[in-house]
């Protein structure tokens, strides 16, 4: 019994000894990893450092490329970062310009073009570059690159598809404008929102109420606002003929000035310049929700028979349209702001969706220039559709060349 007990104690002691030995084995193993002699060495330097002008820019930028250190992702695998240094002479002091993580082999030394800027990088001046492969505390420098200087390019090769598209669409537009001017009639499909314009103005006349025309928050340089000016011209001419007042509260002072000129010209064309009232086209404010509060007040006090919301709209679209609905007005809306179209669809009687707003001006005006442009746009869309189908097929069958034709570098 005693012998068995002693044997058990010995076995247990032996087990503890084994565990202790195992513990020390692991400890020494870890230490031996930490003391790997490769860690005390700097990474291999990068090779073939090449500095050249950054293409397709206005100068003031040099791109540096290199071949990765042999210890980047291989070998000692200890490269953490590459630092890029620049000097205006090979013997001069090299200043750090930036860094890229391991695995990357290009760096764009983007300088400022203003002389008084601390980061100024003059064009047409030679610079030399050196790349430092860095591990944790250790580094190795590359050879110094050949000199390179920055200069601006007159032509951006990455935007060639844009040039081709501009030429193509211009040819379409000029061709169809010329044909329209020679008297060729182009079919334009009816747009419900525009067909309703005359009825809406007639309703206002019958009710003896004004018409409210809102451009939204767009400025005079936006395409939606410009399209809206053309529609306003037609609406104002009708209101002049029907002797119905038109109110235009404006968010932007330049839009107000253009709207005043547009309405004045329309009243003149209608033979009723005496009816024109400049004070009906007024600036309200340029703060979004203050503008909404003001227009809402006008809607409830003036009770316009018809509201036009044509132009650029943002978060105020639903608030305006709902208030107009409460005021009992017929509402015609149109915008190219995709996020706001759903609100207009839900809360107004007629909505011009996106490009329909642009088409509406041609539909109303029936001028050769507008009709020809619209026809040209349709041909442009046909080219887009054709490219889309061919592109999808090319992508499916792996014809990368065709896909690259549409790649734009901005």
């Amino acid at each position: 019994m005693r012998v068995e007990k002693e044997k058990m104690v010995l076995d247990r002691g032996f087990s503890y000894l084994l565990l202790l030995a195992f513990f020390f084995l692991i400890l020494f193993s870890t230490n031996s990893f930490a003391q790997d002699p490769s860690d005390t060495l700097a990474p291999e330097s990068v090779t073939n450092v090449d500095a050249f002008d950054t293409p397709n820019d206005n100068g003031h930028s040099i791109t540096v490329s290199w071949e990765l250190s042999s210890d980047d992702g291989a070998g000692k695998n200890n490269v953490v970062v590459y630092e890029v240094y620049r000097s205006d002479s090979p013997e001069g002091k090299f200043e750090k310009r930036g860094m890229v993580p391991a695995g990357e082999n290009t760096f764009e030394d983007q300088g400022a073009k203003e002389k008084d800027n601390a980061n100024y990088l003059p064009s047409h001046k030679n610079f030399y570059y050196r790349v430092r492969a860095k591990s944790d505390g250790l580094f190795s420098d590359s050879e110094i690159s050949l000199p390179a200087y920055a200069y601006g390019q007159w032509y951006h090769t990455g935007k060639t598809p844009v040039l081709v598209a501009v030429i193509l669409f211009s040819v379409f537009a000029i061709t169809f404008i010329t044909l329209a001017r020679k008297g060729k009639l182009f079919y334009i499909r009816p747009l419900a929102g525009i067909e309703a314009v005359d009825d809406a103005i007639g309703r206002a006349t019958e009710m003896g109420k004004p018409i409210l025309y809102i451009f939204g928050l767009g400025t005079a340089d936006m395409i939606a606002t410009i399209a809206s000016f053309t529609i306003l011209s037609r609406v104002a001419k009708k209101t002049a003929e029907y002797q119905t007042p038109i109110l235009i509260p404006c968010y932007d002072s330049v839009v107000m000035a253009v709207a005043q000129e547009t309405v004045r010209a329309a009243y003149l064309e209608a033979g009723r310049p005496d009816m024109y009232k400049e004070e009906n086209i007024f600036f309200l404010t340029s703060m979004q929700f203050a503008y909404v509060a003001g227009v809402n007040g006008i809607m409830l006090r003036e009770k316009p028979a018809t509201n036009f919301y044509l132009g650029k709209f943002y978060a105020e679209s639903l608030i305006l349209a709902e208030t107009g609905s409460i005021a009992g007005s017929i509402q015609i809306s149109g915008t190219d702001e995709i996020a706001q179209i759903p609100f207009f669809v839900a809360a107004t009687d007629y909505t011009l969706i996106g490009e329909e707003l642009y088409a509406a001006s041609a539909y109303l005006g029936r001028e050769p220039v507008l009709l020809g442009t619209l026809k040209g746009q349709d041909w442009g869309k046909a080219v887009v559709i054709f490219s889309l189908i061919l592109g999808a097929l090319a992508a499916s069958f792996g014809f990368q060349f065709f896909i690259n034709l549409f790649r734009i570098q901005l």
Partner: protein
Amino acid sequence: MHPSPDIGIWIGGLLTLGIFSFLYGDNPYYKFCEALFVGVSAGHWFITLFWTVFIPKLLGNIGIAIHTFRTEGFAAGMSDYMHWSYIFGGILGFLMILRLFPKIGWISRWSLAFVVGTTAGYYFINYLVSNGLMQIQKTILPLTSVGNIILVVGTFCGLIYFFFSKEHKGAFGGLARVGIWFLMITFGASFGYTVMSRMSLLIGRMDYIFGIWLGMIR
């Protein structure tokens, strides 16, 4: 309940209630808040433009141009000369002021024509890139998954809908109809998404009234 002792918070809370009173209908309280809101914002806008555009952009740049000319003369670089170009904007702005004089107010049309004409041309390129070429680039997808097929077909039919010089009937009309369905489904999704973001705005106002102002919630 621990109402805020800050008078500014009280004014903000009372004005918020004034604007909310519009839900009840047009009333003197709303009219007062509306007039205050519109008037203050218009005045603020004027002062902001004066100090962020007129002073630094116009006077600041012309000042730099004059200083450079006095110190460097004709030896100044091209970028220094560019500061003089702001005079052109100043002249256009001055022509706009002539609208105040009816007899020569027509001259302001030159400024308007310049602004509308040049920017329309400028935006033509931007729209062509973002709405045309980028659209093609992003839609050229291999027809190897249901998602890609839906995207290509939706774009194709959507474009068909926006053909204005061809009557929408027959097969062409059918494709246009599919296009409008795609558009309406997109609008529905967008509607729901935006309504949710508006709810967060309402929550923000409620937090202001019941939390910051009245101290009823934390």
